[in-house]
């Protein structure tokens, strides 16, 4: 198990550091509270309403379509980096991927998935 010893030390140090940083201020710091300090935000905007509000369900579809687009974009990066090495094989693979995705979007578009209803 010796190859894993550095990993174990790393994990132990990380835990100890995180624990220390969160516990030590409570012990060492001086407390002089005033109303300004007690506010939720020291900078930025005051919250205007509860965060646990309700969202219209139509955002769900948009979010899903966005995730698909996002994952698609993310999978372009490795291809772009290795494009010259993969040559025609990579190009064909990517073309197949984009065509499959495009058919999916064409279906969603025609079935009025992009309309705000």
């Amino acid at each position: 198990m010796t190859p894993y010893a550095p990993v174990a030390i790393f994990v132990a140090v990380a835990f100890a550091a995180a624990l220390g940083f969160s516990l030590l201020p409570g012990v060492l710091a001086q407390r002089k509270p005033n109303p300004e300090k007690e506010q939720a935000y020291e900078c930025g905007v005051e919250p205007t309403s509860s965060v646990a509000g309700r969202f219209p369900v139509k955002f769900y579809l948009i979010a899903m379509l966005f995730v698909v687009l996002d994952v698609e974009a993310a999978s372009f990066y490795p291809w772009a980096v290795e494009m010259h090495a993969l040559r025609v094989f990579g190009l064909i693979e990517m073309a197949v991927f984009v065509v499959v995705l495009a058919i999916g979007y064409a279906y969603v578009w025609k079935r009025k998935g992009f309309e705000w209803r």
Partner: protein
Amino acid sequence: MIANPYTQADWNAVIPLFIVGGAALIVLLADLVSPKYANRYVSMAIGILGLIGGGVYAGTTYGVSHNAFGGGFILGGFAVVLQEVIVISAIFSIALFGAIGRGDRIAGSVALMLWSTAGAMLMAGAANLMTIFLGLELLSLGLYCLCGLADRPTSRESALKYLILSSTASGFLLFGMALLFGATGSVTLAALTTPAVAVNPLYWLGGGLFLVGLAFKLSLVPFHVWSPDVYEGAPLPVTAFMSVVTKAGTLAVFARFAYAAIPAHASNALLIPFFIIAGISMIAGNLGMLAQTDMKRLLAYSGIAQIGYIVASLAGGTDQGVRYAIYYLVAYMFMNLGAFAIVALLSTDKEEGSSIASFHGLAQRRPVLAAVMTFFLLALAGFPPTAGFLGKILILSTNVSAGFPWLAALLIAGTAISLYAYFKVIRLMYDRHAKPQALPSVQAPLAYVSMAVCVILVVVMTFYPYTPSNVLPLVK
């Protein structure tokens, strides 16, 4: 410069998957241009044609033996036979969409079903841990959506239950795979047979978790509780599809693992618990059938017991065992899909005719359907002259000769219990004092066709019990 590591033969091995997956894309495109009154039949026709294309191409590779993608996908007799089982049951399931489901959802349903089929076909040939998981997820992801596509609360319950429980099982499977990889340093099943790994505790833990994941997907007791609920809520064609395709795909993975990925001296210790739960499934599945009031739930419990028989056939790792398992799997496919076709024929626009009450007095309203349903139930129970009878005899013989007489005893006990459950339905169908019910409007000529084909094949299989001879070795 990365050289292309794959040869033309590698790609040829997965062409059937591409045909089936490509057909799903064509189904979606055709749905956008076809007129509204025809889109149901356009989707079904393209789906079935794609499956036939994939099945025929897979059939032409029957004699070929090839280790594609560096051992990731093994083409050979076993993979091809399992792929044919998967393709045929997908065809029969899509045929049931003729009567069931909202017209505007058929294209999406057929497309998802085709992708799931492609996943199961990948599992049929998968021989390394990565392709196994890829196939399994491709199969499951489509099914999560398909389960929820009926307009009733039980359907949503079914989808959610399947999503949560099946993902948990995938987690077990994946964790087991990670530990197996940790123990051996290789993802190919062939590398798992090195005798040295059996002393590594990681190997035992990994193998155990892997088998738990498979037992869940096969719905063996005690990992079966999801299947009646999921089957009940899902649309009928999806239930029919799940009852055969998921089991065939997972069975292929299990057979490959049990036959070719375990060091010889570790095989018994790792697999006997699995065969014990298969034996318990035979009893518990058949007992569970007794209390059911819904045909889909009844067939779900029946499936739990039947898959127990099939897994039991693999005990001992004999050549016979895997051939008889395939025989019984094919018989189970036709018996089960035939029964589902009859449920489809009793369905209306609004309601699937799956409650046992809709079978009450069926012999007066629909004498032919009642007779055929009786035939399928007797076949499932294992009466001669049906393939169910011969299949059970073959499994009994292989169990006894492989040194597992207790599995044979459990099979007999389970069959005895199941007789009562099947006869309860038969008695209801032939009840003379049943109140007359309205006849559902029949709009499913295809379901009649698949019913007739299933009857003929269940009988023919009995008299021509062909089992494929070139299935072993499962891993090269």
